């Protein structure tokens, strides 16, 4: 009976797996994830610098129980044979990883140069989102003022 309970409790996801996952996440905080390996071409060496954002979320749970016989209390269940036992567990999670190049570093005979990488798409999205939000806010304000 006790072995059965042990077997069930082992099958339920534990915090250890979550901790392992978190350790892998913290490994992202290293410079290796931000800077690429240098690439040599002639007299020049180039490496890129990127911004990295990683997020994860998870949750798990489980439970096990014994089938109680008639007149049997919870405390008796460990010692007395009962009808059966059962349990279950489960978990789930999700994550996101985003990376964006920020600059290219060039090491050459003239010295070291940092060339910024501009993402026009992101800037355009920010511009149009702000513009739409501004118009929406202003039209609401106008409507509010008309009512006054």
């Amino acid at each position, binding site marked *: 009976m006790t072995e059965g309970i042990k077997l069930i409790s082992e099958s339920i996801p534990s915090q250890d797996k979550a901790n392992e996952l*978190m350790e892998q*996440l*913290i490994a*992202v*905080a*290293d*410079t*290796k*994830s*931000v*800077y690429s390996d*240098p690439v*040599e071409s002639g*007299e020049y*060496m180039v*490496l890129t*610098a*990127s*911004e*990295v*954002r*990683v*997020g*994860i*979320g*998870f*949750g798990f749970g489980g439970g096990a129980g014994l089938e109680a016989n008639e007149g049997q209390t919870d405390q008796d269940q460990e010692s007395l044979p009962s009808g059966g036992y059962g349990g279950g567990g489960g978990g789930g*999670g999700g*994550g996101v990883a985003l990376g*964006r190049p*920020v*600059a290219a*570093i060039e*090491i*050459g*005979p003239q*010295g*070291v140069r*940092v060339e*910024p*990488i*501009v*993402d026009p798409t*992101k*800037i355009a999205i*920010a*511009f149009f989102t*702000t*513009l739409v*939000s*501004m118009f929406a*806010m*202003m039209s609401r*304000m*106008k409507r509010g*003022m008309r009512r*006054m």
Partner: protein
Amino acid sequence: MNKMNDMLQIKSVRGNRIETQGVMVTPLSKAIVVNLPIGGFVWNRPVGIEVEKDQQIKRIPIIDVTLIAQLGIIAFGMFLTIAFWLIGRKKLGNIKKGV
């Protein structure tokens, strides 16, 4: 306090040195780590490089132009919206007073 430190960490990390053409380059990055019991978040970004040449150390910052432009646009948009709102309120106040 310690629990808070475990939950939120700001790390400045120095990478492995790269040596070429008598120049030593050390990449530098800053990471924000949020550690929660139900997950976590890491934001790692490059902050600059340290260039060592002829026993002189120079730090070159890495500027995220895209992020600055995005934040600038959002801040400007908010400023304009607030400014128009204040002007509108003032105009409405004048109309009510009969000015």
